[in-house]
C-alpha cells in the first residue's frame, strides 16, 4: 500500500516535471506566401536551425522556444522573409535557445545563422548561406545554387552537393566534403583540417588551403583531375598514381610539393598549406 502511494507520488512529481518542461517549450508556426526565388533568413542566436524543401510558394517556419529569456520575431517584406530570436537581458545558450525548422520553396535563397547550432540544409536548389560560430553545420543534397558556409570553430560537413559554387571558411572547425562536384569549390581554414572524399566531376575548380590544418583527399581511381599540392613548411604525400605533368619546367621539392594529372584532367584541384600536412590517397 505504502509502495503504491510512493509510486503515485513519484508519478505525480514526474507528471508535474513533464508539464513544466512542456510549458517551458513553446511552439510557434509562421506561414508566408511568397513568389519565385524568395529570400528567407533566420537568425537563431542560440539553437538548432534546419531547412528542407517544401511547397513552391510558401515558407513555413516552426519556432520551438526552449528557454524563457527569448522572443521570436518574424516579418515579411515582399518576397523576403526574416525570422530571428531576440534575446532578453541575461539570456545564455540555454535560456535563449530557440530551435527553428523551416520548409521553403526549393528555389529559395536561404541564409541561416546560429552561434550554437546545429545548422542543417537539405535538398535545396537556390543559394544557401550558413553561418555558425561554434555551430556544427551540415549541408546535403544541394544542387545548382551557391553555397557559402562560415564557422569559427564549428565542424562542417557537406554531402552530395552538385553544380553551383561552394565557398567554405572556418578558422578551426574540421571540414568534411563527400561527393561535392561544382564549378568552384573553395575551402579555407586556419587550423581546421580539410577532408575530401569522392570524385571531382568535370570542369571543377577546387582550392583547399590551411595554415596549420592538414588536408587529405581520398579519391577514386577513376578520378579525372589535375592535382597540385604545396606546403610552404609542411610535408606532402601522394599515394595516388598520378601522371607527371607535361611541359612543367618547375623543379619541385618532392617533400613540399607535387603536381600531376589523373584521367583526362577534367577538373583542377589545388591544395595549399602553410605548415599543415597534405595527403592525396586512392580510395
Amino acid at each position, binding site marked *: 500500500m505504502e509502495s503504491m502511494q510512493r509510486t503515485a507520488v513519484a508519478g505525480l512529481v514526474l507528471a508535474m516535471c513533464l508539464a513544466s518542461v512542456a510549458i517551458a517549450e513553446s511552439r510557434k508556426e*509562421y506561414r508566408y506566401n511568397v513568389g519565385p526565388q524568395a529570400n528567407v533568413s533566420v537568425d537563431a542566436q542560440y539553437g538548432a536551425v534546419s531547412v528542407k524543401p517544401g511547397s513552391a510558394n510558401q515558407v513555413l517556419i516552426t519556432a520551438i522556444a526552449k528557454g524563457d529569456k527569448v522572443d521570436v520575431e*518574424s*516579418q*515579411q517584406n515582399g518576397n523576403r522573409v526574416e525570422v530571428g530570436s531576440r534575446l532578453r537581458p541575461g539570456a545564455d545558450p540555454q535560456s535563449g535557445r530557440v530551435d527553428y525548422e523551416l520548409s521553403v520553396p526549393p528555389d529559395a535563397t536561404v541564409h541561416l545563422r546560429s552561434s550554437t547550432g546545429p545548422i542543417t540544409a537539405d535538398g535545396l536548389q537556390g543559394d544557401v548561406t550558413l553561418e555558425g560560430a561554434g555551430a556544427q553545420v551540415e549541408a546535403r543534397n544541394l544542387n545548382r545554387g551557391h553555397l557559402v558556409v562560415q564557422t569559427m570553430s564549428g565542424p562542417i560537413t557537406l554531402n552530395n552537393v552538385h*553544380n*553551383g559554387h561552394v565557398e567554405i571558411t572556418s578558422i578551426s572547425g574540421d571540414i568534411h566534403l563527400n561527393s561535392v562536384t561544382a564549378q568552384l569549390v573553395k575551402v579555407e581554414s586556419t587550423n581546421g583540417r580539410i577532408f575530401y572524399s569522392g570524385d571531382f566531376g*568535370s*570542369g571543377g575548380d577546387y582550392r583547399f588551403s590551411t595554415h596549420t590544418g592538414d588536408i587529405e583527399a581520398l579519391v577514386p581511381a577513376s578520378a579525372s583531375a589535375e592535382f597540385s599540392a604545396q606546403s610552404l613548411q609542411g610535408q606532402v604525400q601522394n599515394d595516388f598514381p598520378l601522371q607527371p605533368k607535361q611541359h612543367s619546367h618547375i623543379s619541385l621539392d618532392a617533400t613540399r610539393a607535387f603536381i600531376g594529372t589523373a584521367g583526362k584532367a577534367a577538373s583542377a584541384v589545388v591544395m595549399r598549406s602553410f605548415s599543415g600536412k597534405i595527403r592525396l590517397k586512392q580510395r
Partner: protein
Amino acid sequence: MTDPKPGSITEAEAIERAKQGDEAAFEILYHLHKRRVYSLCLRMLSNPAQAEDLAQEAFLQLFRKISTFRGESAFSTWLHRMTVNVVLMQLRKKGLPLVSLEETLETEEETPKKELGAQDVKLTGSIDRLQLQRAIDRLPPGYKTVFVLHDVEGFEHNEIAELVGCSIGNSKSQLHKARLKLRDYLKFMRAEKAGNT
C-alpha cells in the same frame, strides 16, 4: 498560427529614411537590389572580385546621391542604369571595346572546333544555367555587353545604344551575333560533355 504583424516597410519609405541617413534603410535598399546589381556586374566582367568592387561602387554612387532622388523614374531603373555606367566605365578603363567591330577577325580559340560533332548536338529543351553562364563568359567583350544588357537585363536597343554609344542597328546586329556564338558554344559544351562520359 500565422504571424499577424509582418512589420515591413516599403521601398518608398526606405528611400525617405535613407535620405535622413538611417543605416537600416540603406541596408534594406541594398538587400532589395543587391542580387540584380551584383549579377549584372558578374555577367559583364566574369570575375567575382571585380564584380564585388563594382557593385560596391554602384551602390555608393547611388546612396551618395539619394537625397536628390525625386521619384521621376523608378528607383530600380535609376540604380540599374547607374550600375551599367559604372561597369562600362570600368571596361573603358581596361581598354576593352564596348561594341565589337563588325570586321573583327575571330581567333581560332573563339570558334569552337566543328569536327567534334558539335553541329549534331541539339539544344532543344532547356539550357543549364551554369553552362549558359560559362558560355557568356567566353563571349568577346563587345558581344557580351549587348547580350547581357538586352537578353539578361531587359534593356531595349535604343537604351543600349545610348548607354554604350553605338547605333541601334549596331546593337541589334551585335546581339544577333552574340546569340549565334552562344549557340555554338553551348552545342560545343554539350558535345564535349557527351564525349567525357
